[in-house]
Structure formats: C-alpha cells, structure tokens
C-alpha cells in the first residue's frame, strides 16, 4: 500500500502509456475500420488522462469533447456512408460480447474508484495543487489558458477561426452530390 501511494504517479503514467501504445498499435493493425475507430477512441481518452497528469486539465476536456465526441463520430459516420466491407454489425458477435462488456465495466469502475482513493491518499486535496500562477495571481488551469489565449495569442486565435471556416466550406463542396453529376453531363456546376 505504501508503495502504491508513493509511486502513484509512476503507476498511473505507465498504465496509461501501455494502454495508449496498445490502442495505437490496434488502430494501425486491425483489419476492420470500425475496430480501428474504437481503438482510436480508447487512445484519445487515455491521452486525455495523460494531459490531466501533466496539469493540462482544460486540454483534457477539449480532447474528450473534440476528439472523442466530434471527430470519432465523424469517422464512424463516414465508415457507414462509405459502406466498407465487413462493417455491418454481426448480431451473434455482439450478443456474445455482452458478458465481456459487463465484466469490463465493473473492472473499470473498480479501477476508477481505486484510483480516486489512492489519489486522495497520495496528494490530498488536488484543487490547491492544480492552481497555476499568471501574473502573480493563483488561478485554475482553464482561467490561465484563457488569459494567455485571449491576450498574447489573440491574432493566431482569429486566424485559426478563418482556417475552420475554409475547412467547413471545403467539406461542404467535397460532399455535394450534384458536383459529379454536373461534370459528367458536361454542364457547369450549379
């Protein structure tokens, strides 16, 4: 128990690093794109946990929302739209996974509970430790990131919004259905 408390950071880092590497190898090696996507999702979530370990709490939240919430849903939609071979879920395969899912859920809950308990033992109240100094004032991570982002990095921030607008227009143009029909008829696209 003493070993667990004193080496809490190391244990967390090495477990997360192991999961990240297994997930990354899964993304590259798995044949079915849906399995690759699930593996990538696990990798993203655990990378967010690593962000928390390095006191980048705001980025961890952004990572979960943008990657796990946004980009992964986009990937799964495209996998379905592109109708890649072997993607349709096999009912028997899924129902045989139910006990595995239950055991995995229980284990994950136990792991998180043990992690929280050990974390409280190791660092006590984490809120004070997570404070950062900006211009001599102690603030939380989100506030600190906001202060730097909207003062020192305001111009790059605005430029990035233009990049997003261009990407949005580009994605809409690529996704238009009448684009290829108009070209094959020799007409100018409407």
């Amino acid at each position: 128990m003493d070993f667990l408390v004193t080496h809490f950071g190391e244990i967390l880092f090495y477990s997360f690093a192991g999961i990240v590497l297994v997930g990354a190898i899964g993304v590259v090696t798995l044949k079915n794109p849906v399995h690759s996507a699930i593996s990538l999702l696990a990798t993203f979530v655990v990378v967010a946990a690593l962000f928390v370990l390095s006191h980048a709490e705001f980025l961890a939240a952004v990572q979960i929302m943008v990657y796990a919430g946004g980009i992964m849903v986009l990937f799964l939609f495209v996998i379905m739209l592109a109708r890649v071979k072997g993607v349709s879920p096999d009912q028997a395969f899924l129902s045989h996974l139910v006990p595995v899912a239950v055991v995995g859920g229980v284990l994950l809950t136990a792991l998180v509970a043990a992690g929280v308990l050990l974390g409280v033992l190791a660092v006590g109240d984490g809120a004070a430790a997570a404070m950062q100094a900006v211009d001599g004032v102690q603030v939380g991570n989100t506030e600190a990131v906001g202060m730097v982002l909207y003062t020192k990095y305001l111009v790059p921030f605005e430029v990035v919004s233009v990049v997003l607008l261009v990407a949005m227009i580009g994605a809409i143009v690529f996704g238009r259905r009448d684009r290829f029909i108009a070209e094959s008829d020799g007409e100018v696209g409407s």
Partner: protein
Amino acid sequence: MITATHYLVLSLLMFGIGLIGVMVRRNMITVLMSLELIFNAVNLNLIAFSFRLGDLSGQILAIFVITVAAAEAAIGLGLIIALTRLKNTVILDEANEMKG
C-alpha cells in the same frame, strides 16, 4: 519520478506507430486515423514541455493543433465521401488517375 523524457519517449512511439500506419495502410479511413495518432503524439509533446517549463504557450499551441486536426479530419472525410461517389472505393491504390 515521471520526467518530460518519459512523455517524449511515449510521444515518439505514438508518432512512429502513426507514421507506419500512414505509410503501410491502403484503406484511406485508417490512414486518416493514423494521422490523428500523429497529431496526438505532437500534442503530448507540447503538453510535456509546457509542464516541464511551466509555460502555458505549449497548451495554447496544442489547442491550435487540435483545431487544425479537426479541420483536417473534416476535409479528409469529405475527400473519402467524394472518392466513394466517384470510384466506389476507399482503397488508395485504386485512385490512380494521375499515374503518380
């Protein structure tokens, strides 16, 4: 004690795995996913240095990387949709009109 070096080694391994995926896989969707792995490796690097130096600029840069990665994913997936409409495939080797 976990140092920045630990994070850098993990980031290097992630980057390498992603790079192998981009070069070896022929399915365009998997190639894009490997690209996201590379972006994540870069972010891990930035966060590790931000933590090590006590400077928030690394975290700001990581936010920009995440934004550009989202834009790249939207464009790339739009390209996949266009490719499936045109050629009915997501295999990169079959999109060979340019004879590259």
